[in-house]
C-alpha cells in the first residue's frame, strides 16, 4: 500500500452496498470451470448440497477434482455424469442402503482415479490449509495401506522426541459447496445440526458457494446459539435458496433421508452410468 493510501486510511470510506449474492444453482455451476477442485460438504446422506451438485452434472462439467469426507449420492451424481477426473474421499456409500453402485462399478472396472483418505488425515490436511501451516503432523494412517497411495504424505521423525509421524500437506480446494439451514442475503451461513467437516472445508477453500434451506435478511441474527456459523465473509461468492436442498438425503432436524427416493435416484444413476 502506498503512502497516499495510508494517509487516506482514517477518512470515512464510501459505504458498500450489501452484497447481492442471490443466484441460481446453474449460475454457480457456470462459475466452476472444468478441471476445478471442488469440495462437497455434508456427510453420507446428511446435509449434502444436492442441488448444487446436480447443477454441476447438468452443466456437463468435466475432470473435476472432487473432494469430500464421507460421500453418498453427491459423489454418485458426479460420477454418473462423468464429471469426475479424480475423487478424494474417506468413504463413499449409501449408509444403511449399502454400497454406492456407480462408485463400486467404476472402482471394480479400474475406471476411477480414487484417492482414499482417512477422516483424520483429511481433517489434518484441511486444518493445515486453514491455519496456513506447511503440514499437519499425524499418527493416523501409519501401518495401514493408505500411505503407499499418497506420495505427498511424508514420513518424518518428530524434531522434539523422534516419534515417527506423517506430515500431511494442506489441501486447498478452489471451490467448496455447502448446504446449510439458514443464510443471510450477504452470505453468513449457519447450521443447526451436525456441522460435520463443513467449517474446515469452507476455511480451506478459495471460494465458497452456499445453498440454504432459507434465506434471511442481512440484519438477521440467529437466536440462542443453536445455529453454528460455518461460512461468512467475502469468500462466500454466491447463495442459492434451496428448500429441501439435501433431498433425497436428510437434514436434521427438518427432514430424514427418504430410503425409497434414495434408492430410486441411486438406481437411476446406476443405469445412467451404465449407458
Amino acid at each position, binding site marked *: 500500500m502506498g503512502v497516499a493510501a495510508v494517509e487516506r486510511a482514517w477518512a470515512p470510506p464510501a459505504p458498500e452496498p450489501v452484497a447481492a449474492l442471490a443466484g441460481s444453482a446453474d449460475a454457480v455451476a457456470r462459475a466452476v470451470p472444468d478441471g476445478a477442485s471442488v469440495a462437497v460438504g455434508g*456427510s*453420507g*446422506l*446428511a446435509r449434502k448440497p444436492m442441488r448444487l451438485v446436480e447443477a454441476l452434472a447438468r452443466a456437463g462439467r468435466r475432470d473435476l477434482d472432487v473432494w469430500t469426507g*464421507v460421500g453418498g449420492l453427491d459423489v454418485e451424481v458426479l460420477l454418473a455424469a462423468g464429471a469426475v477426473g479424480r475423487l478424494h*474421499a*474417506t*468413504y463413499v*456409500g449409501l*449408509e*444403511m*442402503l*449399502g*454400497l454406492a453402485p456407480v*462408485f*463400486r462399478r467404476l*472402482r*471394480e*472396472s479400474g475406471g476411477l482415479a480414487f484417492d*482414499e483418505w*482417512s*477422516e*483424520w*488425515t483429511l*481433517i489434518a490436511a484441511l486444518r493445515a490449509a486453514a491455519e496456513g501451516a506447511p503440514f499437519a503432523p*499425524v*499418527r*493416523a*494412517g*501409519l*501401518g*495401514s*495401506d*493408505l500411505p503407499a497411495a499418497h506420495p505427498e504424505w511424508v*514420513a518424518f*521423525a518428530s524434531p522434539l522426541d523422534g*516419534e*515417527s509421524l506423517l506430515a500431511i500437506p494442506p489441501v486447498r480446494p478452489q471451490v467448496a459447496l455447502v448446504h446449510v439451514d439458514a443464510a443471510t442475503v450477504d452470505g453468513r451461513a449457519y447450521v*443447526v*445440526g*451436525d*456441522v*460435520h*467437516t463443513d*467449517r*474446515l472445508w469452507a476455511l480451506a477453500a478459495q471460494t465458497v458457494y452456499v445453498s440454504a434451506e432459507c434465506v434471511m435478511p442481512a440484519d438477521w441474527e440467529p437466536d*440462542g*446459539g*443453536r445455529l*453454528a456459523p460455518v461460512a461468512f465473509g467475502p469468500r462466500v461468492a454466491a447463495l442459492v435458496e434451496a428448500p429441501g436442498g439435501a433431498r433425497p*438425503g*436428510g*437434514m*436434521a*432436524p*427438518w*427432514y*430424514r*433421508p427418504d*430410503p425409497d427416493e434414495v434408492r430410486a435416484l441411486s438406481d437411476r444413476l446406476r443405469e445412467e452410468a451404465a449407458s
Partner: protein
Amino acid sequence: MTAPLVAIPAVDREALDRADRVIAVMARLLARLSPAPELVGGATPASHLAALVARSVYRPAIAVLGSQGRVAPRARLGLLGQEDAALAAPGGRVGLDLPSIFAWVASGRFAIWISPAQIDRQGNTNISRIGTGERPRPALVGSRGLPDDAVSLPSGLYYVPAHGPRSVVAQVDFVSGVGDRRRLPPGSRAPGRPAWLVTDLGVFDFAGEDGSMRAVAAFGPDGRDAIEAATPFALGGPPALDVIEPPTPAELAALGAFDPLGVRAVEFERDPDRARALRAHLRTAEEAFLGGVGEDILAGLGLGLGLGREADR
C-alpha cells in the same frame, strides 16, 4: 422401560437373540476397559447399543456420542424422534463436530465397536475392498476412520455378526486399520492396539505370539470346534473355552428400552431375503414411530449395516 410399539416379526427371533448375546458381551467388555474411555461412539446399531447398555447397566460415567454429534445419555435407537425434541429445544444443541470428535480419538480417550468386512489373525481390518490389485471385487466403501482409530485407541474393539472364512481371514486384502504392530515404522509410538473381537461364535483377544488372535470364550459348550471350523487359520488360546453367560435381565431390559423396534436384528440376520423383509418392516415401523418427523436416524445407523452382506455377494 418402553414397550415395543410395533411387534417384531416372529421369524427374526433367532437373529434378535444372536444380536442380544453378542451385544451384551460387547457392553461388558466395554464397561471393563482400562483406562476407561471418556467418549464412546456408535458406528452401527450393535455398536451404538453396546455403548448405551454399558452406560446404563455397568458404567454410568461413559459418555455416549449420539446422533448429530451430541453427547447424549438418553440416546435411543429408533427413538431418535426424542432427540429431535432435544435438538429443537432452546439451548439444546450441544454437538461435537468431526474435528472435535477426532481430538478425542487422537488422544486415545475414545472407544468404538467397529464391524469390519474383514479382520485377520493380527487384528488388521479392512472395509475398503475385497481382492488385491487394481480391480477389487467387490469394491467396498473406503477406510473412513479405521486407520485413525487403529493407531489411536489403546483398546481396539471389533465385532463380526457372522463368523466365517470371508470375514475372519488369515490376512486382510487391504489394511484399513493396522493391527500388526510390526507394520508400524520404527520409532512409532502409536498407542493403538486391537483388544477384542466378538463374533456370533465367541470372544477373541490378541494376546497370542506377536499379537495374534486367540479364542478365549465361546457362546456354547462345544465352542472351540465350531470356532475352528469357521476360522481359516490356527487360533491360540485354551483347548477348552470359557462359556459366556447369556444376557442378564438387566442387559435385556436395556436392549429393549434403547431399541424397542429391534433394529439390531438386521445385522445378525443370515438370510438375505429375511434381512430385506426386516428392513422394510423397520422402515414402516419407524415411520409409524417417528410420525415422519425429521431426524436422519437411518443415516445414523452407520457404515456397517449392509456392508457384510454386500461383501458376501
